[in-house]
């Protein structure tokens, strides 16, 4: 679906709008999850997510399919918006995140699960921002390694290697916390 965005955009503005609408509906929650994972601030994540979609909508006619997938293009815009937000606020990505809300994990989960997820959340805070971004793109936004590579401007193998290292480090931090 995403791959037809630009071809349709060239054919007719109406089709471009429909294609963008489909891209929006399929990516809305993923973009938010990625931005929130990067910013660690739900309120800022909402602002940045809205701004990212707004920017993408304005630029929808300028998208070049030869330069990547529409979904990767959208996440590139969201990434820039998130980084700009961090710059604007003078904040660093590793700033203190809001504490994870145990209630948000669901009451049906066991206490052991809750504790483990709290540990994972805390471990995420101890990762480098770049590492945390990789994990957010992969597991929060659900991007494939090829899409991550496009968003970050890396080769696919390099993106896979970096992701593997980030996961190892996350696991080590989790193990160290236990």
């Amino acid at each position: 679906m995403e791959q037809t965005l630009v071809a349709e955009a060239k054919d007719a503005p109406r089709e471009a709008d429909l294609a963008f609408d489909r891209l929006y509906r399929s990516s809305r929650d993923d973009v938010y999850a990625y931005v929130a994972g990067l910013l660690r601030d739900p309120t800022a994540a909402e602002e940045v997510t809205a701004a990212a979609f707004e920017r993408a909508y304005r630029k929808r006619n300028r998208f070049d399919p030869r330069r990547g997938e529409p979904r990767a293009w959208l996440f590139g815009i969201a990434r820039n918006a998130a980084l700009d937000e961090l710059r604007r606020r003078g904040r660093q990505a590793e700033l203190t995140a809001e504490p994870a809300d145990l209630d948000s994990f669901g009451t049906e989960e066991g206490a052991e699960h809750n504790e483990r997820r709290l540990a994972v959340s805390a471990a995420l805070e101890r990762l480098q921002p770049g590492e945390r971004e990789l994990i957010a793109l992969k597991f929060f936004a659900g991007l494939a390694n090829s899409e991550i590579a496009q968003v970050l401007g890396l080769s696919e193998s390099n993106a896979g290697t970096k992701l593997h290292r980030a996961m190892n480090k996350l696991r080590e931090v989790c193990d160290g916390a236990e």
Partner: protein
Amino acid sequence: MEPNRDDQLIADLKALRPMPRPQFAAALDERAGAGFPRRSRLPRPNLVKLRDLSPRRMLIPAAGFAAVAIAVVTALLLSTEGQDSASRTLFSDHSERLAPPSHSSPRNFNDSGHHRAAAGAPSAASAEAVTEEMESGVMFAPEVAPREVKPGLRHRAVERSAQITLAADPKDVDDDASRVFEAVHAHNGIVMRSSTEEGRAGEAGATFDLLIPSARLDDAMAAFSEIDAVRSRHEATADITAPTVSAAELLKESRARIDSLLSQLEAAGTEEEQEAIEAELRHERRHASRLAAQLSHLHKRADYSRVSLRIETGGQESSGGGAWGIDDALHDAGHVLTVAAAVTLIALAVFGPIALIALLAWLTHRAWVRRERRRVLS
């Protein structure tokens, strides 16, 4: 990494996935349906439309704007150029020159060519005399009384000369030549030499060597300019005050010497003494005659201006006569294109560096933003 532990970690990460609030999701859906209207800024419909345009589509209005700008500047330059040619100032000194000969009568001298002299033929003898004086620099006609030039000369003696080239169609050469004679006659001038050639464009033409009273040179040049299209025009002046004053003083001294010799001759007692004084007197008279001729020649140079007039055909524009044709159109088109190219070059010279600076500034800003984004994650 152990598969089971990795699966567990991935499951935990997915469970930690942030989800948007339903209220935010609903609000965003609403904005998406409305085409993402700007929230916190004033509406800027024109800018939004421009931003929505693809770079290729933006080229069209940009090119149109550039073309209009070039056309306007070209029109301004052409109109300015027209004013310049109409009000072309010539190199001349109108304020400091000897008074014109008030006694000059219409004179005409003809002819090394085959053209007829204009009606009302002047005194050929006097014209010839003036001509010869001016060409040889020696005057053998002492009856032309030199004017009194005092050492404390208030006016300066200025010699003027002019050249003018007219462009004409071959069939108009004869008519134009006749009008030249009429104009010379009307301004009491002298045609020293003239010739006309018939033939095709480029071959046909006419040349005139004229003497025009300096006081009426401007009027005469204006009259020549109205005969046909002016291809070129030039005027020059030369100050001859110093040689004029010098010749006048020498002449005065020579005449005083002659008077003195005449007195000595009357008082001479012997025949030998008389012969010696008469010989000296003859010598002094020849000397005075040469000085008078020299002075007269200088006066003529100040009183009359040499004008070289040419009538050319072919080559450049000859808008004065004939119908406007395809050659004129091609020439005009070439002229317009030349001016447009010049304007474009000037515009590039002006806007090129500005655009380059803007491009460098934009590239620098972009590089800085990228570096700052990387720094945020480092």
